[in-house]
């Protein structure tokens, strides 16, 4: 794989993480437990979709085959998506959504912070813009983990279950393959392993404050970055891509 192909793949990962999580969050629109939460979840979704456009447009530019963010979002099949498995997991109850968000936001924040130092100024610019938004996402999801963990017996039980059930999808966030290593070598992106310690530190201290117990490190489910997804992604794409598939080139 040459440098251009690696960069394209890497940008797809960044864009697809934002796209799929943004879509998942938008599923809450009109269904949230309270109006404020409906607005907040939709706002976070909107930020992520905005970031998706930036990353995927850049991916299309790097690829040089005339695909823009829309074409990449609407006209690829599941095996061509490069998001981590964590973001495609179903919304579940509110605790599952917030635990998924907290795991992701903490990692996303650390990753973007490193990417602001990328040697590719296009990457650094998008990262700097996104980091400001993700800072708010992280503050909010962390507060919800605390609120629900250290809340009622019922909210504690649900948050503990969510923290446990999603744990096996967090390992993938820190694993590097040849594409990640190529990015490190070119000075374009960070060594993902270096994000693990600060991530774990924040997750652990938050769990403690929330009276939650963190699972032991163990077997991790992975594959999303290479296009091997859980069954959930196909259903997401059926929803997300329906209009463009049924009515090709339809515009707003």
């Amino acid at each position, binding site marked *: 794989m040459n440098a251009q192909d690696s960069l394209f793949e890497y940008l797809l990962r960044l864009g697809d993480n934002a796209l799929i999580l943004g879509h998942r969050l938008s599923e809450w629109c009109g269904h949230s437990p309270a109006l*404020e*939460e409906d*607005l*907040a979840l939709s*706002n*976070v979704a*909107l*930020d*992520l*979709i*905005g*970031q998706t*456009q*930036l990353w995927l447009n850049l991916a299309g530019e790097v690829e040089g085959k005339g695909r823009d963010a829309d074409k990449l979002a609407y006209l690829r099949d599941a095996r061509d998506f490069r998001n981590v498995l964590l973001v495609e997991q179903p919304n579940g109850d509110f605790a599952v959504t917030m635990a998924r968000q907290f795991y992701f936001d*903490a990692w996303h*924040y650390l990753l973007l*912070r490193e990417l602001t130092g990328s040697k590719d*100024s296009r990457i*650094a*610019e*998008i990262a*700097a*813009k*996104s980091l*400001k*938004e993700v*800072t*708010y996402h*992280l*503050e*909010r999801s*962390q*507060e919800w983990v605390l609120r629900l963990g250290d809340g009622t017996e019922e909210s504690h039980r649900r948050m503990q279950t969510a923290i446990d059930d999603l744990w096996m999808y967090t390992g993938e966030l820190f694993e590097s393959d040849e594409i990640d290593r190529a990015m490190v070598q070119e000075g374009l992106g960070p060594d993902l392993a270096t994000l693990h310690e*600060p991530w774990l*530190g*924040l997750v652990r201290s938050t769990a403690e404050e929330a009276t939650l117990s963190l699972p032991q490190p163990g077997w991790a489910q992975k594959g999303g970055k290479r296009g091997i997804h859980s069954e959930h992604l196909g259903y997401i794409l059926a929803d997300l891509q329906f209009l463009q598939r049924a009515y090709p080139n339809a515009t707003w």
Partner: protein
Amino acid sequence: MIDSLTRPDPDQIRRWLEDVPDPEVPAVSVMDLGIVRDVQWDSDELVVAITPTYSGCPATSVIAFEIEAALRARGIDRLRIERRLSPPWTTDWVTQEGRRRLEAYGIAPPAENAGGPSPFDRLLRKPLVIACPRCKSENTSRISEFGSTPCKAQYRCDDCLEPFDYFKCI
């Protein structure tokens, strides 16, 4: 036809843009918000650089459209709107006049000095003191980190009981 003798200078154009309202918060102009980053002539074409407040803000394309319409109405027929991402927009660019207008409109203006400690230094973070735009009381509580648009949070005044938007720092 605009040539180098008759073309309006960028400062004049900036003043015209002070009349272009933000589509979501019409009390303030695009200049008040600090989203117009550059205005200059590229020979006989005017180039206006704008930056999005939030990457997914749907108002960005409407803003570009309104700027274009306003300048065409002033007789500028050749212009290009450029989207600029860097440096990223910060509420520190909201002008003093913009802050005053926001408050008069019922939106608490952003606390100064955007940024602050990262969420990884939670203990260093202090809750912001946001004054009620109606009665000026500082006895207020945050209802939600996010409001009716990406740039706002929801607060409530615990004295006059008015719920209000806070234009949050970024």
